[in-house]
């Protein structure tokens, strides 16, 4: 609603009206929460003053869940129940995971997303991620002194629909109102762009713990436009640890390791990698459970040699993104480095060589994403007056397609399309009296369905029986601002709305989320109720506020009877809002939403007319 909220110049929202919004970087290795305070983005630290929360969760037999440093301390002692780098499993099946044998977990191959068996039961990556988000939410609420209006959670730009959906589900499960999923490199660009008031073409090279993203952005006058993005959602700092680990195993001539030794040596390998950032050599020493003592040392030269293919692997997506953007190396004015893994000197060198310029490192590569996310959350929550905010235009990283005859893919929305984007297609029946059709939506760039990722299969039922080829079914694929897909279908000749059931191939159905929410409360009923009531009240308040400010700005767009109808719905919602019946609130809320539909559309039309009028005056 920030758009048409017109305040007197100089008059801004009173401090107590500031909506509490945070940005969360849900990382493979570490997670952070940040917010904007008095106009400055800051990372919120825990009670001990630590900004980073290791993305590690340990499930104990007594039901206790340790997250962060406490879990990290136990990872070698209890590897099976201590989950690290869960982000790599988001929206993924067992068959998708490389180095599965090197992960000490007891995987369960569930349909769609894999799960992990722990002493506290079988956990999905969504639940584990929610357990990382919960202490971050609590940290923010304690620090800001109240419940959060909403949060922006960052995802790798190259995350597909399943991985995004899983992340959003984790946010909901952690009790967050997810305002937006924001791409990590875009978040970093916001932090950099606003910090330096930059203009021009920038590349963001984001090598995190488990994912690699490369985004090309055009920055100009408060607009951040992503022109191309590319990457590898299974390549990150973890892989460098893995290389060091394998090298150490070979050097020390170790037999296959027990899970806890494997974890121990991986931790030591990571420490050695970090040590090599500022030293020429790093020791790897560990006492294994077998009594064996590992004592090897790795030097910079060896480290560079065994990781050279990984460094090279990041340059493929860089070239691809430049080609997609139709730009050359010379067009790029700056290269922003993001992610702890970019501290490795060989990465810095490779990027500098490729772009023929020194990369930008002036913001902390571990914090820059959370800071940018906090800035965006502040805008989305409506805390910025118009004119001081900015516009973010992001893209879909992978093409969406549907399966056609012979297992081929027909692209419906090409990669790097600015989101939101949609595409409608018409289909007809193949046989007389056919009442159903089935669809298969995939994501990826390849021509064969089997080479792409399956997103959803759905069946369209209830088509009125007609002669073959007579029905006209219009299917609309919509990708929203989070990069998430939804599908609707309608039979056009009879106007009958046919039902669509989208069965996610990966990700969770809404009923799963509800079940997990219920499971997460010990005293199921009251808590679920209390929560539903709180949520309904927050939604109700928000809608009332939004509607009132819309009326204050544009009531001229409404006829007297329309105004009266909306006023009546407002009064109804106000009446039930203080009650304890969340269903009544939901009903009144829906009624008010319905009553303001035309008004919303007219306001939007007016916005466009004003935009064009403004432009023409400006152009004269």
């Amino acid at each position, binding site marked *: *609603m920030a758009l048409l909220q017109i305040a007197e110049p100089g008059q801004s929202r009173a401090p107590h009206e500031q909506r509490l919004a945070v940005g969360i970087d849900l990382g493979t290795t570490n997670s952070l929460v940040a917010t904007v305070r008095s106009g400055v983005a800051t990372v919120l630290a825990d009670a001990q003053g630590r900004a980073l929360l290791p993305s590690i969760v340990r499930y104990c037999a007594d039901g206790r869940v340790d997250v962060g440093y406490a879990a990290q301390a136990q990872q070698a002692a209890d590897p099976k129940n201590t989950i690290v780098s869960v982000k790599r499993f988001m929206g993924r099946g067992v068959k998708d995971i490389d180095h599965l044998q090197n992960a000490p977990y007891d995987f369960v191959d569930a349909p769609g997303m894999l799960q992990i068996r722990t002493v506290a039961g079988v956990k999905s990556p969504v639940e584990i991620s929610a357990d990382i988000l919960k202490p971050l939410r609590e940290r923010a609420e304690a620090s800001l002194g109240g419940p959060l209006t909403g949060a922006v959670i960052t995802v790798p730009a190259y995350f597909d629909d399943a991985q995004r959906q899983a992340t959003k589900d984790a946010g909901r499960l952690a009790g967050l109102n997810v305002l937006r999923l924001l791409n990590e490199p875009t978040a970093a660009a916001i932090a950099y762009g606003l910090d330096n008031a930059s203009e021009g073409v920038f590349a963001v090279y984001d090598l995190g713990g488990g994912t690699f993203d490369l985004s090309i952005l055009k920055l100009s006058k408060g607009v951040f436009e992503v022109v191309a993005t590319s990457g590898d959602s299974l390549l990150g700092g973890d892989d460098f640890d893995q290389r060091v680990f394998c090298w150490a195993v070979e050097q020390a001539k170790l037999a296959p390791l027990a899970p806890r030794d494997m974890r121990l040596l991986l931790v030591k390998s990571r420490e050695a990698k970090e040590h090599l950032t500022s030293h020429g050599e790093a020791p790897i020493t560990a006492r294994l459970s077998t009594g064996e003592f590992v004592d090897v040392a790795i030097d910079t030269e060896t480290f560079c040699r065994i990781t050279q293919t990984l460094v090279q692997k990041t340059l493929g997506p860089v070239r691809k993104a430049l080609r997609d953007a139709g730009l050359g190396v010379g067009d790029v004015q700056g290269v922003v480095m993001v992610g702890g893994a970019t501290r490795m000197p060989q990465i810095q060198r490779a990027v500098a060589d490729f772009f023929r310029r020194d990369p930008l490192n002036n913001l902390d590569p571990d914090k820059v994403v959370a800071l940018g996310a906090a800035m965006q959350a502040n805008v989305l929550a409506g805390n910025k007056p118009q004119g001081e905010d900015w516009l*973010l235009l992001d893209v879909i990283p992978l093409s969406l397609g549907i399966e056609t005859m012979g297992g081929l893919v027909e692209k419906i929305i090409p990669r790097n399309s600015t989101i939101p984007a*949609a595409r409608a297609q018409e289909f007809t029946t193949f046989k007389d009296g056919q009442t159903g059709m089935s669809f298969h939506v995939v994501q990826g760039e390849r021509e064969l369905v089997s080479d792409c990722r399956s997103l959803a299969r759905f069946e369209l039922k209830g088509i009125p029986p007609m002669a073959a080829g007579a029905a006209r079914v219009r299917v609309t694929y919509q990708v929203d601002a989070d990069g998430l897909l939804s599908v609707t279908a309608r039979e056009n000749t009879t106007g009958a709305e046919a039902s669509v059931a989208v069965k996610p191939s990966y990700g969770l159905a809404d009923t799963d989320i509800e079940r997990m929410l219920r499971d997460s409360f010990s005293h199921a009923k009251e808590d679920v109720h209390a929560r539903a009531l709180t949520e309904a009240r927050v939604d109700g308040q928000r809608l009332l506020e939004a509607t009132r400010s819309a009326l204050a700005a544009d009531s001229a767009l409404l006829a007297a009877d329309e105004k009266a109808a909306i006023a009546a719905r407002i009064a109804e919602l106000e009446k039930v809002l203080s009650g304890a019946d969340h269903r009544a609130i939901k009903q009144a809320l829906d009624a008010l939403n319905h009553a303001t539909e035309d008004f919303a559309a007219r306001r939007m039309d007016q916005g466009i007319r004003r935009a064009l009028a403004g432009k023409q005056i400006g152009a004269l």
Partner: protein
Amino acid sequence: MQSHFDLFGLQPAFAVDEVRLERAYREIQSRVHPDRFAHAGDAERRASLQWTTRVNEAYRALKNPVQRASHLLELHGVDVAFETNTAMPAEFLMEQMELREALEGATQSKDLGALETLQKRIDGDKRTLEQQLGERIDRQKDYAGAADLVRELKFLEKMEAEIDAAYEAIE
């Protein structure tokens, strides 16, 4: 239905003022984008999503020469018929076959230099075709005649995509 040009307050023409188009696009986006309505009610969020989607689609179409031309021809009642009309001048087809052979050769021998040469060639051909299209549509108003050129341009666009794919395959 409002044309893509109307949406941005532009005169329908193949020669499009890219600066004006971009400015209008950004002006509109800054008013309708979902980021402006993240905490608004459902009705406004839905309206915002629909408008932004429409604006993005129109912008993408106007920026792309093939889509811009097809849209213009459609406004004048001419169907480009990409699917059904595959007739092309023999000379153009011969040339395309040669280019395709060159592409295959470059891919097989992993010759990045040859790919670059090909890409430059296609770029040049595209620019020439686009000039001819502007002439045909904006000056001669020969919409039916323009349809042939649009199909040729589409051919070159496909070729361009194949060159990109070849780069990826080689790297």
